[in-house]
């Protein structure tokens, strides 16, 4: 039985188990803790993936994810649900026009960052000349950015830039169809917004995980934080598919490495000296100082000679806890058990 101990990090107290180093009770304003009791995962909070032959299961206060050796894309894991897409967040349906549209919000749902979407629909039987929707706003560093999105009749089109605020959206080059003489309609919104936890507010991630079958072949097991919207088959070792991430990675082997990318500096496969051994370990990532993010296994710092500067995610950038085994196909398997996930944040 471990004895209760206390520690201070950035002026905040947390109680921990003196033997296992588990942070038992962080005394922070924002705390997520799921021990996965019960017979179902809280679907309001979590998204789970079990693509193709991959499986997920919950029992006895633990989640088990299994990636099979079958030659196919497989994702097996869990992350917190981002805010759902809202295609009419900025403007409900109205006629297309030249000039600035009146917007109902200048920020994204939950105050996070996101991509602008444009949905248009033909009216009158003949397409209008679409032109562009010119979006002006700021990015996560409060710098001015802009992009032009070309609407596509009958579809929702997403922009490519990640906005924090929207200053204006303006119709340019649009022309009403000459035949029917009616304006097509347009709706302005946002795609999935990742908004669970703010990276620069003293974020700490901790998970207790048992890798019972080591990743083999093309399988990658990712444990940590990610900032991109989830997409199937997103890899970080075989490919750099996730722009924003701080992860423990088991790349086709028992060996644990670190991958950290703030979309400014990309550091890959940093050795930790830790290997999976079919027993539980406590993995912690401490972003209290974003220019020196620290990684721990069972309470001991790993990769301590490498400075992981992730300050490119300063500003109002949001991340989610992210535990996924993934492969693009081919041979490769992995089985891991998640006992708990905790994320706490020193400030709101």
């Amino acid at each position, binding site marked *: *039985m*471990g*004895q209760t101990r206390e520690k201070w990090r950035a002026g905040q107290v947390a109680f921990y188990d003196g033997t296992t180093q*588990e942070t038992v009770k962080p005394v922070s304003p924002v705390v997520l803790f799921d021990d996965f009791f019960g017979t179902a995962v809280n679907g309001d909070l979590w998204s789970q993936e079990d693509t193709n032959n991959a499986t997920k299961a919950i029992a006895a206060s633990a989640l088990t994810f299994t990636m099979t050796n079958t030659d196919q894309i497989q994702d097996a894991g869990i992350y917190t649900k981002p805010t759902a897409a809202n295609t009419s967040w900025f403007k409900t349906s109205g006629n297309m026009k030249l000039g600035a549209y009146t917007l109902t919000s200048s920020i994204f749902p939950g105050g996070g960052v996101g991509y602008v979407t444009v949905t248009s629909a033909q009216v009158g039987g003949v397409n209008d000349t679409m032109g562009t929707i010119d979006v002006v706003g700021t990015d996560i560093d409060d710098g001015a950015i802009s992009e032009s999105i070309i609407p596509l009749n009958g579809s929702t089109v997403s922009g490519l830039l990640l906005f924090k605020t929207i200053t204006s959206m303006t119709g340019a080059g649009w022309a009403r169809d000459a035949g029917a003489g009616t304006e097509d309609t347009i709706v302005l919104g946002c795609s999935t917004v990742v908004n669970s936890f703010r990276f620069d507010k003293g974020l700490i991630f901790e998970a*207790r995980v048992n890798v019972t079958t080591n990743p083999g072949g093309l399988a990658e097991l990712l444990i940590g934080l990610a900032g991109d919207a989830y997409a199937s088959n997103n890899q970080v070792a075989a490919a750099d598919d996730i722009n924003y991430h701080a992860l423990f990675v088991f790349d086709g082997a028992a060996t644990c490495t670190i991958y950290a990318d703030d979309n400014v500096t990309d550091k890959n496969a940093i050795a930790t000296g830790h290997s999976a051994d079919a027993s539980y370990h406590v993995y912690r990532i401490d972003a209290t100082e974003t220019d020196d993010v620290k990684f721990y296994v069972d309470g001991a710092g790993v990769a301590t000679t490498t400075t992981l500067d992730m300050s490119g995610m300063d500003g109002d950038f949001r991340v989610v806890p992210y535990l996924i085994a993934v492969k693009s196909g081919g041979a490769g398997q992995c089985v891991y058990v998640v006992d708990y996930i905790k994320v706490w944040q020193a400030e709101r």
Partner: protein
Amino acid sequence: MGKTRAKWRGGQLAFYDGTTHETVLPMAPVVFYDDFLGSALNTDYWTGINTNDATVAIGGSKITGHIHGTGESEDAGVYMNDDKPFNLDKGPIFECRLAIHVAPTSLAEIMIGVQDDSYGTASNRILNADEVTRYAAFGFYNTLGAGLVPAIRTDDNNANSGIINSGFGAVVLDAYHIYRIDFTDVDNVLFYIDGAQVAATTTFVMSAGSNVMVQPVVVAQKKTADTGLADIYIDYVKVWQATR
């Protein structure tokens, strides 16, 4: 209003209410706590039992379990989906605040505790019959104090304690009490009511087997054509465990 106090058990810190002795915040690695807030039982965790005419309802931050006088088998209460996440070898502590609204009559009985068995509808009695293989629980039945004196019984499938009078005396209808079972030492399981140890002269042993997994069960029940009554109010259930 009770003042916050701290206590240590096995080197672990817990905060408790100095008046009611409710364990407010255990600093244990594994902590389960349901105060039954809201308008629906969380079925991710719990199975609400209401066999035949029995009813189980949530409201006012409590669960109400009610068994009728109808001559039939009835169960009214909650158990943890037969998931059994707590390991007796890891030092779990069970705590439940409960009031008896209608004392059990005839062959009705009330169980407050944990069991290793999956819940058996119409076959989960521990006082009028011994139908569960491994359990540790408080109980109420008509034979002891007209259903108002808490009894204790444990069975680890090796040693059965038999029905032990807690010595607490009769509870008052609708008065809440806090029932705690401490498995820190499975060779000497301790029972408490409102923070005071009860049946202290009896050694309750739950050490048979290893890694025995249990679930909390709080239920009023009767079997076959019995016409007994019993109503319970369950305010909260907490279980915490010293190690994973």
